[in-house]
């Protein structure tokens, strides 16, 4: 897919909460070994939202960082999309909270997107469409989650908190473009590998079925489609970011597509912060923009259970250099951390009911 007029990233920004819990600490509670999580799935610890944080607060901080880098007034935003599977309200948009808090209201389109872990890139696709068609000048696409795994479930070891905001604009109107969108694809089938029914606190999953038929089938297919459409090959990319539910999956997907480990590593954040769900692939992309140079080509491929994958190719532009230091980088947030024990974790994540 390609918009009729060129679309660029004009600003990017992320946010990771302060708190971390290690896989050892979670394993200690349930009498499990942390070896599988640390050695096979490459997760050391995950980011945990504080008591006063949720997807709206994460999205606002990420958006403010993105606005600083985009160097635009929030009033110039024509759309604010929030993609998440952990919305603060079941009914009531998160997007309106974010749009109001950053000062983008009232002349703005806003909506919440849900497609498990690909909701963030869905927001990006929609923003690209609106900007590329000329309907709006700038669109804000946010992927953020405060995902929860059920206590003792393998997902409890990986479900992290955080998110990223991307601002897209029309190429001819953005003074310092960060990255040019070369093209994108979306690939969707009905594959129920992971879900959460209404009124349930925690998601359910089909265990190993989440792998081959779900994650790998979709993310590999979308990436192949994109490469075909753009006549590109893996070696044309400096960086590749795949959705990262753990460290193993994106590295294996990359390898089977012909990407090298070095191309994936820069955007691989799951060892430090866990799986950010809708924030996962976009935060990986954000971390790449934090270090990329003009001329670098970046692949971003999300995966959302249920299931689908969006894939994008970006060509990094000069703006990445001038805008980088305007806001904290993903690594700044990763380094700013405070480890908590499981007792505080249960308090923060509302697992104590009274």
């Amino acid at each position: 897919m390609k918009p009729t007029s060129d679309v660029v990233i004009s600003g990017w920004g992320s946010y990771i909460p302060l708190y971390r819990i290690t896989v050892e600490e979670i394993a200690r509670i349930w009498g499990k070994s942390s070896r599988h999580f640390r050695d096979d799935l490459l997760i050391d610890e995950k980011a945990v939202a504080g008591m006063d944080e949720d997807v709206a607060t994460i999205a606002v901080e990420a958006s403010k960082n993105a606005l600083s880098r985009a160097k635009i007034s929030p009033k110039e935003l024509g759309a604010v999309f929030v993609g998440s599977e952990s919305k603060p309200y079941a009914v009531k948009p998160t997007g309106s909270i974010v749009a109001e808090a950053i000062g983008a209201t009232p002349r703005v389109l806003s909506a919440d997107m849900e497609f498990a872990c690909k909701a963030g890139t869905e927001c990006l696709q929609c923003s690209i469409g609106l900007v590329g068609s000329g309907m709006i000048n700038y669109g804000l696409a946010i992927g953020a989650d405060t995902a929860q795994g059920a206590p003792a479930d393998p997902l409890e070891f990986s479900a992290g908190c955080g998110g990223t905001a991307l601002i897209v604009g029309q190429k001819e109107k953005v003074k310092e473009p960060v990255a040019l969108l070369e093209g994108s694809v979306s690939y969707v089938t009905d594959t129920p590998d992971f879900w959460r029914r209404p009124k349930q606190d925690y998601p359910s999953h089909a265990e190993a079925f989440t792998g081959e038929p779900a994650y790998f089938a979709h993310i590999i297919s979308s990436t192949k489609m994109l490469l075909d459409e753009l006549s590109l090959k893996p070696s044309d990319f400096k960086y590749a970011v795949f959705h990262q539910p753990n460290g193993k999956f994106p590295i294996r997907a990359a390898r089977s597509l012909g990407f090298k480990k070095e191309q994936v590593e820069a955007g691989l954040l799951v060892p430090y912060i866990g799986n950010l769900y809708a924030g996962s692939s976009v935060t990986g992309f954000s971390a790449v923009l934090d270090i990329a140079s003009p001329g670098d080509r970046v692949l971003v491929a999300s995966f959302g259970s249920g299931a689908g994958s969006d894939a994008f190719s970006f060509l990094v532009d000069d703006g990445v250099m001038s805008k980088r230091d305007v806001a904290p980088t993903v690594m700044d947030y990763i380094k700013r951390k405070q480890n908590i024990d499981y007792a505080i974790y249960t308090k923060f994540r509302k697992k104590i009911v009274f």
Partner: protein
Amino acid sequence: MSVPRYWREIPGRTRLEAQKCSKCGHVIYPERLRCDKCGGVLLEPYTLPEKGKLLTFSIVRSPPSNFVKMAPFVLGIVELEDGTRITTQITDIPVNDVSIGMSLEAVFRKISEDGDSGIIQYAMKFRPAFR
């Protein structure tokens, strides 16, 4: 808290929108009918700076009922870069590490929830400046 009460204060509490006296330049927050310094009646819209220093604080261990789940937390008065003072919570820091004079920055956070079915209330808190 009732929805209208929360809703009408959103600009002041989440975007730190205030007033500035066009006569003496004094910043008025929260809003008033006239300048509380010179009595001037011409007030223009003004947005407070998001950085400041901690003037004083307290570690709250016996909070009002809708804040019990958050205890202990730090309540503080922040003196912003323009001299305006604001009462709010200090977050993202162990309560025993808070000190008078520390540099702070505003963060949009959840303040409280009206139970499990009511609205969620957001506003600015301050946290240690980290960058």
